[in-house]
C-alpha cells in the first residue's frame, strides 16, 4: 500500500461510520446509505489522489449532501423502507426495555426526518457526531452564529414535533 493509500485508509476508518449515519438519517435505508456512503468515499479518494484537500470532514459531508440531493432529485423524493432497519437497543436489555427504547428512538428518528434539511444537519452533526460549532460552520458553509441559531431552533422544532406525535 503506497503512502496516499495509507493516509486515505486512516481517513476512511475515521469517518466511515459518521458519513454512513449522516446519510442514513436522510434516506432511511441501509442499502441506499451503503451506496451513497461508498460513492462519497470513492469521490473523496479520487479527489485525494488528484489534489490536496484542506478540510477532509467538510469535503466528505459536502459530497454526501450533494449525493443525497442528487438521489432525491432522481427518485423524486421516493423513500425506500429498508428491511434492514438497525436496532437501537442493547442486546442485554429485557424485551420490555428493548421495545420501549426502540419505539422512543424510532419516534425521534422519524421526527428528525421531518425537519428542514439545515436543521437536520445541524442536529446530526452537533448532537449525534459531537462536532464543534466551528467545524459545523465550515461543513455547512454558514457562520458560527447561524449554526448556533440552527441548533437551537432545530431542537425546539424536534420537541414540538415529538409532542404533537
Amino acid at each position, binding site marked *: 500500500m503506497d503512502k496516499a493509500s495509507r493516509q486515505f485508509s486512516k481517513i476512511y476508518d475515521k469517518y466511515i461510520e459518521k458519513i454512513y449515519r449522516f446519510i442514513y438519517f436522510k434516506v432511511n435505508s441501509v442499502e441506499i446509505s451503503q451506496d451513497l456512503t461508498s460513492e462519497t468515499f470513492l469521490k473523496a479518494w479520487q479527489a485525494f489522489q488528484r489534489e490536496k484537500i484542506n478540510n477532509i470532514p467538510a469535503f466528505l459531508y459536502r459530497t454526501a449532501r450533494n449525493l443525497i440531493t442528487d438521489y432525491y432529485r432522481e427518485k423524486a423524493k421516493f423513500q425506500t423502507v429498508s428491511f434492514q432497519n438497525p436496532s*437501537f437497543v442493547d442486546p442485554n436489555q429485557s424485551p420490555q426495555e428493548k421495545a420501549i427504547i426502540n419505539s422512543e428512538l424510532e419516534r425521534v428518528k422519524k421526527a428528525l426526518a421531518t425537519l428542514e434539511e439545515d436543521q437536520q444537519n445541524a442536529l446530526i452533526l452537533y448532537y449525534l457526531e459531537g462536532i464543534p460549532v466551528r467545524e459545523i460552520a465550515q461543513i455547512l458553509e454558514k457562520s458560527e452564529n447561524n449554526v448556533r441559531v440552527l441548533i437551537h431552533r432545530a431542537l425546539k422544532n424536534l420537541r414540538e414535533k415529538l409532542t404533537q406525535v
Partner: protein
Amino acid sequence: MTEKELIKNLRQLRKVRPSKDWVITTKQDILGETQTPRLFPFFNPAFAALLLLLIFLGTLEIAKDALPGSPLYPLKKTAQTVSLFFLPPQEKAKASLILAEKRLEELEKISKENLTQNLSPAFKEYTQTKGEAKKEIAKILPQAKDPEKKEFISKIGQIHEKEKQVFATLQISPKELSETKTQDKELVLTLLKTEKIEDEALLKEIEELCQNENYSLALEKIVIYLSKNQNLDKTNP
C-alpha cells in the same frame, strides 16, 4: 420528553452503524487492493528501531560479564574502547589505567575459575590494554599536576602489585610481557625526565636495567620509589 431526554435520545442514535463486513469490503473496493492482515500490526519503523536498541542494550548488559575468548567479549571490548575515544587526554589516561586493572581482574577470574581456554586471550588483552594505558600516561605526564601524577603512579603501583600476585598464581614470568616493552621504555624515559630521583644507587640500577632492556622492572622500581618518597612537588613547585 424534556430537552435533556431528547438530547440523550439523539445521542443514542449513534448506535446506527454500518456492518463491519461492508466497511471492510468497501474500503478494499475503493482503494483497489486487498488488505492482508498484518502479523504484527504494531510493527513500524519506530518500533523496530526501539526493539533493536533494546536488544543491543540487553546484549551489552549481558556482555558486561563476558571474559576474553567468549563470543560476547568483542562487543564488551568495543563498547569500552568507544567510550574511551570521546574522553579528553587526561581522563583518557585515567580510564585506560582503570581498564587495564579490569583486564587484570578478568585474568584473575579466569585463573580462579580454571578456565584454561580463556587464559591466552585474557593474557593478550591485559598486556595490550596495559601497554595502551602506559602510552597514554607517558603522553600526559609531562603536563600533569602533582596530585594527578601521584594518582597515576599510585595506580600503576597497585596494578603492578596485583599483577605480581596473579602472575605468581598463573606461574607467568614478568619477562613474558615483552609486548609492552616499547610502552614501558617510553614511560620509564618520561618518568626519568619529569621526576626527580635522588637515590643514586637506584638510578644506577635503573640505568643497568634499561641497558638490559628490562624496562618493566625499571618501571616497577621507579614507581615503588616515587610512591614511597612522594617527592613530586620538587619537580613542580
